[in-house]
């Protein structure tokens, strides 16, 4: 054991007790964490990464740590504490949590209490572990906020989480974790919910803090690009077991286990953009917008007036027949607003949006009246980001998929059931799935149900708003391939809204890059991704992690 080893985990197994016997979450997990090193844990959802992290803090209820040892080393005193055997709510383990091992989580909004200020939440940890008074704790909290580069920390400390942006919340989480200067920082998918530019900033921040404070970082992610950027050591997990451990370069360039190879191939697959079947784009235009502008009015806040947002600023795009048009940009760039304007949810203040109907007529999408007879909605359908929120949990799959057919009076009774069955099989689910409720399905399966609902009316256009961003790597690829097949088969045009450049490169024919409500660049996917012209696009593309540790560019100092 080297001098820098701070945590030693051997033979760790965690079980979820159940009525029909226990379910194993993780089994025989071994790994070491070293001071000044980042160890990345990779694997798909359900592989036991998060359970492993929580086991280190001994917070696994309702599961139990079945066997194994977790030794936390006090480097200065040369002593070891065994964590797994401690009472999960006892004083000894609580003295470790937050003080020597701190943790940050994936969803920075829901991981912070909505009813306490950022400052209250940071000082709480400091007061708990350090012998200081309130004023000193507050001073340290402000220092912690400054260390994570939050502007104007004296003001920011008294704000509530919902007044922060996503990236700022994650910084605040990190500040909270660093408040007591821990030896180990556990980061559970800390950048998954953020867009690429923010992700790059957070990765840089974690890397920098880790180096300056010589912390050990346990970093959990499913994104091989992030691993390549930040890891020193890699632990690959599959079905609750560690299948491969090694230095990052070795794992990426000489992987041993078949699963590691598969993960790498999936990551590179999106990145290399194989010359997939690209149909020659048709010249027929389905939707054309010209100079669409939409500003949301200003809102009064507690002490200040917040200026209105120019959500769309002279946006001109066109969607051609049979093509997949990607709209990329950070959150708040106006992508979703554009989709909502096209679906008649918002009316722009100026500009035009013309839709060329199947029957040859045209409709003005900026006019509410165009949507009144529902014909536009029959030809233009949506797929949503959140596969959980977008399906009514109280309707069966048959009702969900059949609803558009029913409300449009197209089919009913046995014909409807037959059609729903056919649609389910088309999206790769058994027809018998129609009797079940959405909760019986995984995220990827639910997204398939959402797609079946979208194609039920035989539409011409599908608007997919971040349709794959909530899905894991390999599931994401399957859904994208399904959409590609459907496009060819049903002659669909797809407006694909995304922030993931890898997905866009793989999936889209043409791309429009949006920034602060404006289209800053338009071009073919390859052009945009490989030879961006505009400064903003270049910045966006360069923020994408590359799944190769030798091409590390975000965190390189």
């Amino acid at each position, binding site marked *: 054991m080297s001098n820098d080893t701070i945590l030693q985990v051997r033979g760790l197994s965690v079980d979820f007790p159940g009525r029909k016997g226990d379910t194993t979450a993780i089994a025989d997990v071994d790994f070491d964490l070293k001071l000044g090193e980042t160890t990345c844990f990779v694997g798909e959802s359900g592989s036991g990464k998060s359970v492993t992290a*929580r086991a280190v*803090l001994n*917070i696994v209820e309702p599961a139990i740590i079945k066997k194994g040892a977790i030794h936390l080393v006090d480097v200065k005193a040369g002593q070891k504490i065994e964590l797994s055997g401690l009472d999960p*709510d006892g004083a000894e383990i*609580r*003295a*470790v*949590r*937050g*003080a020597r091992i*701190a*943790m940050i*989580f*994936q*969803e920075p909004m*829901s*991981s*912070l*209490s*909505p*009813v*306490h*200020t950022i400052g209250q939440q940071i000082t*709480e*940890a400091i007061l*708990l*572990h350090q012998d200081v008074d309130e004023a000193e704790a507050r001073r340290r909290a402000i220092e912690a906020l400054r260390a994570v580069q939050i502007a104007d920390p004296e003001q920011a400390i008294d704000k*509530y989480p*919902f*007044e922060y942006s996503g990236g700022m919340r994650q910084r605040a*989480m990190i500040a*909270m974790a660093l408040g007591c200067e821990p030896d180990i920082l556990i980061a559970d998918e800390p950048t998954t919910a953020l867009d690429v530019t923010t992700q790059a900033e957070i990765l840089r921040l974690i890397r920098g803090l880790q180096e300056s404070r010589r912390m050990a970082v346990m970093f959990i992610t499913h994104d091989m690009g992030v691993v390549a950027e930040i890891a020193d050591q890699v632990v690959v997990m599959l079905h609750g077991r560690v299948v491969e451990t090694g230095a990052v370069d070795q794992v990426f360039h000489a992987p041993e286990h078949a699963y590691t190879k598969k993960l790498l191939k999936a990551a590179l697959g999106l990145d290399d953009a194989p010359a997939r079947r690209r149909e020659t784009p048709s010249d027929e235009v389905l939707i054309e917008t010209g100079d669409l502008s939409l500003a949301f009015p200003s*809102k*009064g*806040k*507690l002490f200040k007036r917040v200026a209105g947002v120019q959500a769309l600023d002279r946006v001109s795009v066109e969607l051609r027949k049979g093509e997949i048009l990607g709209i990329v940009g950070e959150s708040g760039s106006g992508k979703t607003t554009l989709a909502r304007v096209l679906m008649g949810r918002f009316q722009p203040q100026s500009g035009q949006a013309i839709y060329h109907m199947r029957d040859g007529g045209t409709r003005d999408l900026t006019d509410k009246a165009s949507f009144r007879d529902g014909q536009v909605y029959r030809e233009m359908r949506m797929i949503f980001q959140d596969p959980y929120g977008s399906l009514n949990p109280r309707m069966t799959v048959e009702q969900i998929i059949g609803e558009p057919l029913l409300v449009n009076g197209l089919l009913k009774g046995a014909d409807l059931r037959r059609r729903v069955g056919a649609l389910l099989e088309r999206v790769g689910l058994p027809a018998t799935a129609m009797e079940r409720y959405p909760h019986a399905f995984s995220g990827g399966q639910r997204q398939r149900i959402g797609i079946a609902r979208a194609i039920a009316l035989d539409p011409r256009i599908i608007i997919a708003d971040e349709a794959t961003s909530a899905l894991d790597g390999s599931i994401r690829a399957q859904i994208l391939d399904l959409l590609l097949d459907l496009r060819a088969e049903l002659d669909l045009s797809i407006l694909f809204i995304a922030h993931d450049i890898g997905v866009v490169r793989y999936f889209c024919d043409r791309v429009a890059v949006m920034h602060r409500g404006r289209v800053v660049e338009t071009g073919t996917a390859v052009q945009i991704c490989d030879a961006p012209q505009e400064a903003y696009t270049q910045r966006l593309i360069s923020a994408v992690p590359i799944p190769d540790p030798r091409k590390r560019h975000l965190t390189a100092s």
Partner: protein
Amino acid sequence: MLGYIARRLVTMVFTLLALSVVVFVVIQLPPGDFVTSYIASLSAAGESVDQETIIALRERYKLDSPVLVQYAAWLGDLLRGEFGYSFEMQRPVGEIFSQRIGISLAVELTAVVVMWAISIPIGIYSAVNQYSIGDYVATILGFLGLAIPNFLFALILMYVCYNWFGVTITGLFSAEYMNARWSLDRFLDFASHVWAPILVISTAGAAQLVRVLRANLLDELNKPYVLTARAKGLARRKVIWRYPVRVAMNPLVSTIGWVLPTVISSSFVTAIVLNLPTLSPILLRALLSQDMYLAGALILFMGLLTLVGTLISDLLLAWIDPRIRLGMVGAN
């Protein structure tokens, strides 16, 4: 914040005006008018009616004027604090009110406090120890509490008290203290009676609140911020009180809005069974006997209590939840 309260108060005035129109229509609904009902009730009692009194009454309530004038006169009386005359009880409505409102408030508000005191700890215990023996016991008792009608519980309680302990628990005072002045003895007598209605009213409400709090808290306990707080090193008990319980209280606080009007409207049957001198049996009687001035005043008062209760609960919500606070101030 003050601006917000001012705006709410202004809208409350308009809501009350609208409600007064409804109440006035209700008062006008029975065939004939107030005076004809009055004569009818007097002659039913075998008394003769003085023609001059009738004319004076018709003049007083402007019964021979157009409807709008009648409404204006009625509203003007209300604003002066004259709520009309209850022909059924043969007394001014205001007098009936002032006699009973104190007791009503005392009984119902104590019941609400007891209800909260019972339900919050049980609800938290039930959620934190989901599917434990204690949770099952609380759940079963809760469902029993929901399923048993209040009056039945009151009857059982009366039976048990009388049969086993020889105590009568109806009414709120023993005969000798009924019309006495308030004194320590009278208060002790009051306390020895009032526990029964409070128990009956609060247990039923508590059963419901336990279910609400348990469900809310179960949702909140699985939120990531609870894990964050534990990862900080806080003890489990502290985490639960400081974080999820605070968020889970919101729906409970919202219920204050409809707790106030229950001072009049709830527990009709319980109040009748236990013979309580509160306002709710009066409302029932007024409605049954078409005593429209009394009923109208009570309904209007209930409306006022609802509005005040909603305002109080909104302000409390704003106080405990910053998201609501900022949303409210922002929603100009």
